[in-house]
């Protein structure tokens, strides 16, 4: 991205009204962005080859030891795998549920506003509050699901999704879906409302089934909304941190350690800033690769639809 826009000297701008003097307006935003974003980002590369611990500034250069350590002790592959599972799970489900509910609400239905508010409501809560609420919901025995199971005659004590390393990651991903699908739904609803009713009417006259109307008319017409929603949820999924931090502390074992959680733990619990930086550098490369691939794919797909 960086190379393509290399400026060819000014002068390309010939507008009388929109002169280059306008660039002055960029100064505050650019100052913040350069000082608190680009500069630290570059420093990350520098710290990644040192044994900096966050406090003592006489650190040593250790070459690529941090990188080889991160790769050899398996933290990178483990947290990358967890993050990808988490992201795929949340992206697919929150988009399917969001789109499904949006389509249901986009019909001539009463109490639409009330239903929409209900579905969106969880998005208002802070992740920390959501984490507490769901810690209770998942609590074996006396939690919400456990109590319901007891009520139904099942043994609620055996239900412990956060305590099992096979299910914990899915359990916290489900919390993210619960909180996030409402926003996705609102965006889909807005997209669906732009679909011209006369096209659907024409489809009905031509004898389309409901499914054909959705597949051949509605989905292609909201393809840009789908792109936006998928991208937004992929970005959110790759940033997964909150529920690993609040609900499981990365456990059981290391089954819910995501990239972000691993960086935080290495930097602030183990006080190994150098290694955390090396970890971040590798994680960026992966995240950027995934995002760029996805953008290409989505753009192509949007044209095909």
């Amino acid at each position, binding site marked *: *991205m*960086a190379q393509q826009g290399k*400026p*060819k000297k*000014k002068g*390309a701008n010939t*507008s009388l*009204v929109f002169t*280059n003097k*306008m*660039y002055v*307006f*960029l100064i*505050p*935003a650019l100052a*913040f*962005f350069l*000082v*608190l*974003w680009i500069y*630290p*980002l570059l420093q990350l590369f520098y*710290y990644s080859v040192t044994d900096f611990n*966050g406090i003592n500034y006489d650190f040593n250069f250790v070459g690529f030891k941090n990188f080889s350590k991160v790769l050899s002790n398996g933290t990178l592959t483990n947290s990358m795998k967890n993050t990808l599972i988490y992201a795929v799970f949340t992206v697919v489900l929150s988009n399917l549920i969001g789109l499904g*509910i949006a389509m249901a609400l986009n019909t001539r*239905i009463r109490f639409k506003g009330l239903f929409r508010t*209900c*579905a969106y409501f969880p*998005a*208002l*809560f*802070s*992740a*920390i*509050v959501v984490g507490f*609420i*769901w810690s*209770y*919901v998942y609590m074996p025995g*006396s939690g*919400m699901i456990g*109590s319901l199971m007891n*009520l139904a005659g099942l043994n609620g004590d055996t239900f412990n999704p956060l305590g099992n390393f096979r299910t914990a990651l899915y359990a916290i991903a489900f919390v993210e879906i619960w909180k996030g699908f409402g926003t996705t739904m609102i*965006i889909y609803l*807005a997209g669906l409302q*732009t679909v011209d009713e006369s096209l659907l009417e024409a489809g009905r006259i031509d004898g389309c089934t409901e499914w054909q109307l959705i597949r051949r008319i509605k989905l292609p017409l909201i393809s840009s909304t789908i792109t936006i*929603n998928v991208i937004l949820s992929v970005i959110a999924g790759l*940033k997964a*941190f909150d529920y690993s931090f609040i609900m499981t502390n990365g456990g059981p074992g290391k089954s819910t350690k995501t*990239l*972000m959680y691993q*960086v*935080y733990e290495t930097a*602030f619990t183990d006080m190994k800033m150098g290694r955390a*930086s090396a970890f*971040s550098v590798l*994680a*960026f490369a992966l*995240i950027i690769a995934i*995002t760029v691939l996805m953008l290409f794919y989505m753009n192509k797909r949007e044209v095909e639809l």
Partner: protein
Amino acid sequence: MAFGKKKDNYDAQNYMKMSLKTFLLYLVIIVFCVIVIAPLVIVFSSSLRTPENQTTPLALFIEFSMASYQKAFSNMNYPMELLNSIVTTAGSVFCIVIFATMAAYPIGRIKTKLARFLYFFFISGLIIPSQMVIVPIAQTLNRLGIPNTRFTPMLMFITCSLPFSVFLFSGFMKGVPVEIEESAYIDGATLGRRFSTVVFPLLQPAIISCVITQGLWIWNDYFYPMVFISKKAQYSLPVGMLQFLGDKENPAQWNILFAACVLCALPLIIVFLALQKQFVNGIAAGAVKG
């Protein structure tokens, strides 16, 4: 209401089929909403019990006591935290709107490669999770001599919000007609005047969208305050909730914890219920047009 008006080709059989379908539609939506809301209802009902009464959380609203709230209120230092949250959110959102609209002005208006590059330069920040850069950011602030106060997280909120906000405003800038500005130019308006009296007011829908999406995120975020604030008196509401982290494993504290959760979420719920329409439109506008 749903079908009465479409009198033409719906015979009785068709009508029956449609109403069964409508019934199923309602059923699915209602069941779904109940599942989504259930945890919140149970939490709210438990928070209304005395701290001692922990039995049968599924028996809803059998007791209405404020004792848990009183405890949570004093444990949290609620008025102080609320004030900190309001100051942080309002201050950050104000700066974001000003800085991002200003930045989007040349980016959206000038048609050169440099402007295009700056656009991608800003939005590239969307891809990288800023929390990953937290170590060198903390070092940079340290080196600049910026102390850890309640205002430090605001700097991060502003910076991290810029990619999305610049993206949003640049998109909306296309919808502001160039002709209006050209006539303002002919009438002798200066650049600053054109921006503040012509362009800025016309960006209003995008500004509402930015305030809502970014405000929601900043109000609920606990990460930056957690990293940058050490004094308890400077905590905002979500960070204050972190002190209850140990209580979530301890069922004896649940009623108080739930009361704290309700207190933490309450201000935003009130704002949401009052401005529901703006919320829904703001969230949708940001994504669909931007």
